[in-house]
């Protein structure tokens, strides 16, 4: 099979899975689960093959498919892999089977519908990553909302309605603004160059006045910032996480939040480079505020899921910082940090789910000394905690270290030549965030794993084989990314560089698509 066909297959496999689920009887839970897992594993296998075939030496898109969709509007079904999305696609495919397997025991209401929704969201997430056409991107972007809404709303906890409404309203609000900006962008491209196109590559070339760029970037950025989430657009996240079922939390933390940062790196900043440069201070300030604010809030929570939720805000603050540094090291670090956060936060949420199934509470005060009662569980929890802290040899370190190095590397020359001091102050504050990270994660580990042994519904059984396999996979990935990140970063390097060029190089020398047959300038 050719690679482009394979990419399409990977994308549509979840849809296929949904259709197959329809054919299974409603009460055959075992078949449903097995089928879901098999499809997800197949998807992972195909994605790995694609990942292997992805050539790091080639700039731009690979495995491209471009078919007319709504030809009159210049809308194409245009997908492909590039350095920016290849790791995220791999992450999504990697987490898929884990989410499915993790939900085997947790979900026993409307099992079939549940896995159908997981498939749907998997489809939408992959689609958002691989889309190379703004219209297509937007369609996938909005599609993600529906299954997540249902997953939280149907299988969630007690306050699920509140949480799911908050989630949807927040996200929808951002999306509406983005839609307006998309329409404006396409129309202005049409007006200036005569091309009607939603293709990213065409839109990158459009040059708008700075004030318009700022407005449009504001609209895009709000939508992305809500998704990330950047403080102060974050309050939906803790509620959504707390009320979501485990699988929902894992998808949310593992992949969905990366949509925001991916949006920034793929669309927000490259589409409006002048505005991006002008707004860099604001973005960096918000990033650092997110780092510190999220960490501080994680420190005072008593709900385990909330701690991890707030830690996500802090960790994605690092991603934003790296992206806004426009320094190659920082950008690469941000990409790795995205993947790393997907692994650690996803893993931690899975682990919280496992203990919740046993004890039915997420209240930190109810636990203590699990290291004695559940030794295997505790080892995995500790490893993931340390990865979240960013201990060297884990993926968290790779991401954090490179992001901070990049931010510092970008800030120091500005300080040294007297241009600006604030970037350095921000970079140093972000480094101090590392301390806060250790503070809240160790507080969690401390109260949870150590101290006198107690837990509701004791005696507890330690992890079973299925749970062990899930966690081994995650932990292995965490270490691989921590110890040998090189091959991963080779795949993203060219794209990261291109992103940097797009934003930093002055518009005069930037590539502008020639208007066909003398269209108005």
């Amino acid at each position, binding site marked *: 099979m050719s690679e482009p066909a394979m990419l399409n297959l990977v994308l549509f496999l979840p849809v296929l899975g949904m259709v197959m689920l329809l054919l299974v009887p409603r009460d055959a839970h075992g078949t449903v689960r097995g089928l879901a897992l098999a499809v997800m594993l197949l998807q992972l296998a195909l994605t790995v093959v694609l990942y292997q075939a992805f050539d790091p030496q080639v700039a731009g898109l690979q495995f491209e498919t471009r078919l007319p969709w709504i030809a009159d509007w210049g809308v194409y079904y245009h997908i492909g892999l590039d350095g920016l999305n290849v790791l995220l696609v791999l992450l999504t495919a990697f987490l898929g089977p884990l989410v499915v397997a993790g939900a085997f025991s947790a979900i026993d209401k409307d099992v079939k519908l549940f896995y159908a929704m997981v498939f749907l969201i998997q489809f939408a997430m992959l689609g958002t990553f691989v889309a190379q056409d703004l219209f297509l991107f937007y369609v996938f972007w909005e599609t993600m909302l529906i299954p997540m809404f249902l997953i939280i709303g149907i299988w969630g906890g007690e306050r699920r309605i509140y949480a799911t409404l908050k989630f949807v309203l927040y996200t929808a609000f951002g999306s509406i603004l983005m839609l307006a900006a998309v329409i404006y962008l396409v129309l202005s491209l049409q007006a200036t160059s005569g091309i009607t196109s939603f293709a990213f590559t065409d839109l990158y070339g459009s040059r708008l006045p700075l004030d318009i760029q700022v407005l449009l970037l504001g609209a895009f950025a709000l939508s992305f910032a809500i998704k990330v989430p950047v403080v102060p657009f974050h309050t939906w996240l803790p509620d959504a996480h707390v009320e979501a079922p485990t699988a929902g939390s894992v998808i949310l933390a593992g992949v969905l939040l990366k949509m925001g940062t991916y949006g920034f790196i793929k669309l927000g900043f490259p589409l409006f480079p002048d505005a991006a440069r002008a707004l860099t201070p604001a973005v960096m300030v918000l990033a650092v505020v997110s780092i510190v*604010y999220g960490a*501080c809030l994680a*420190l005072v929570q008593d709900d385990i899921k909330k701690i991890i939720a707030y830690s996500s805000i802090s960790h994605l603050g690092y991603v934003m910082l790296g992206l806004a540094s426009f320094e190659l*090291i920082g950008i690469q670090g941000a990409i790795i940090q995205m993947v790393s956060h997907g692994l650690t936060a996803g893993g931690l949420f899975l682990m919280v789910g496992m203990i919740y199934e046993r004890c039915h509470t997420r209240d930190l005060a109810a636990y203590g000394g699990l290291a004695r009662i559940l030794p295997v569980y505790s080892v995995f929890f500790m490893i993931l905690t340390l990865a979240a802290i960013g201990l060297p040899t884990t993926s968290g*370190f790779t991401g954090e270290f490179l992001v901070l190095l990049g931010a510092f590397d970008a800030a*120091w020359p500005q300080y040294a030549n007297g241009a600006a001091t604030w970037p350095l102050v921000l970079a140093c504050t972000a480094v101090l965030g590392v301390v806060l990270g250790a503070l809240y994660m*160790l507080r969690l580990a*401390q109260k949870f794993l150590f*101290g006198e042994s107690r837990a509701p519904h004791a005696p507890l059984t330690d992890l079973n084989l299925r749970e062990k396999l899930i966690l081994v996979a995650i932990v292995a990935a965490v270490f691989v990314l921590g110890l040998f990140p090189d091959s991963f970063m080779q795949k993203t390097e060219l794209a990261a560089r291109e992103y940097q060029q797009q934003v930093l190089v002055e518009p005069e020398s930037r590539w502008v698509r020639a208007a066909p047959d003398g269209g108005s300038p």
Partner: protein
Amino acid sequence: MSNLLTLIVVLPLAGFLLNGLAGNRLGKAFVSAVGCGLPALSFAAAVAAFRTLEATGEPIVDVVFRWALIGDSAFEVSFYLDRLSAVMTLIVTGVGSLIHVYSTGYMKDDASYARYFAYLNLFLFFMLSLVLGRSLLVLFVGWEGVGLASYLLIGFWFEDPAKAQAGKKAFITNRVGDAGFLLGMFLIYTAVGTLEMDRVNAAFMGPELPAVSASLVGILLFIGATGKSAQIPLHVWLPDAMAGPTPVSALIHAATMVTAGIYLVARLSGVYLHAPEASEVVAVIGILTAFFAATIAVVQTDIKKVLAYSTISQLGFMFLALGVGAYGVAVFHLYTHAFFKACLFLGAGSVIHALGGEQDIRRMGGLAKRIPVTFITFAVATAAIAGLPPLAGFFSKDEILWFAFASEAGGAPWLWALASLTALLTAFYMFRLLWLTFFGQPRMDAETAHHIHESPWSMTGILVVLAFLSTVGGFVSIPHFLEPMLPLPATDEHLHHFEVPLIVVAVLIGLAGLAAAAWLYGGDASRAARLGARFTGLHRLLSGKYYVDELYEAVLGRPLWWISDRIFLRLGDRALIDGTLHGLAGVARLGAAALARIQTGNLHLYVWLALIGIFALLWWSFGHV
């Protein structure tokens, strides 16, 4: 063998994996064999590597793999053995192996035997990465890794919340230092473009200095060192770290890990040589730490806490040496300190073992005859740390005092004076400890007294070896060995006639401390009690460790919590952000309620309204068409 260095590092890792994954199933004999055998092999490999180094005189470089290549910046994992790292490697693997063997006796009855050895091997792995890493990055991996191992081992008996808490405190305090370390590392990278320490040194030693203040780099890295090596203001974690098993205190919190800061500064001597301000900071912080820790040690009543403060104090001495440019001397003291402090801690472990877990020296006494081997080795090590000739501590401490006095790179009489005063205090509190523990009337209860026994040979044997090393270790002149790469600072010619008198003063100081302790604590120790009663205020201040913990809690801990909870959570998240949202939702709901009044359910009205709408449209279209 080309990958010898890798082998040194990887062997303990293998031990960790074996013991960690399969240790519980394989039995204690296997765990002991793996746990002690692999570090010993590592030691053997270190010796072999050392011989190669001696033979060729060239540093050995062992590139393992490329961690990352971003643009033109390559980050490689590679190991580097020169004279400095060779000394460190031998200390770490040598003392480490001894303490592993000791642990087989000390931890014999612990339920988590395999976990203990796994952690200990893990520690060795990270410590060796720290010492052998060529790049600051690898060093940092080891740096954080030993912090992790220390965290796990301090909280080894994690069911006691206080112990787990102590581990956390150590980790967090170290993290504060690490933030400084990271910034220093970034600054080096920005200025020099590489993190490989030999190149960094070369860049700073070279004709063209990097465009960055060496002092700033030095101070930032020193912040990291204060964390790891428990210097003011980040010293608070080390006394609490005594919650871990005693061999751990000996290995990690006395002999090896806490000296990482000294190693770091010595390793980057090229930077510090061009950073007089930073060196001054190092010297001043070092001497202040040495002095204050010694004063606290004078009134401590926990045998391990005394040793902990003593360790902080001795580390302060080493930093003093670094600060006055005598890098080789600092490493020399590091080396002798590793022997006698390990011996002291292990001896203390033996005492605790004998007394069934008792650590309070007010409930000891008269143990000299009951556990003679422990007593003798402990006494030798005490004499060594007090600086009595010809024991190891005498040589290294004397050289530190001399350079503090005479070095042209920052030496000053007041440094010498304060250092000598500290040495006096050191001798005093160490002999006080010796007296209270081994002499006088037994003060423990009868039941405990009945069970006192000498430790097994696996423990006493190690004590003897270490006591022997504490005795003869001083005759190996480390500064001389290191001189090719870490030359000693020039000394003022006019002061040379002070050299011999100073040595005499140092010896007298040691003896004075001995005499004072014997006089105060001899007999029923009533003199000491009276002295304490006269200076209650001072006594309370010292016993309270200058209330630094309380200060940090009040200045940092509680405000952080308050800001997080009150400002960020309650005011920011709940009141402002969610409040705004709920306010908007409320407005929408009110608006909906108002509009709902039109929904009378009367279809006629709806139709009529539609009619009006049609007219409005017609009206509009008449205007526009």
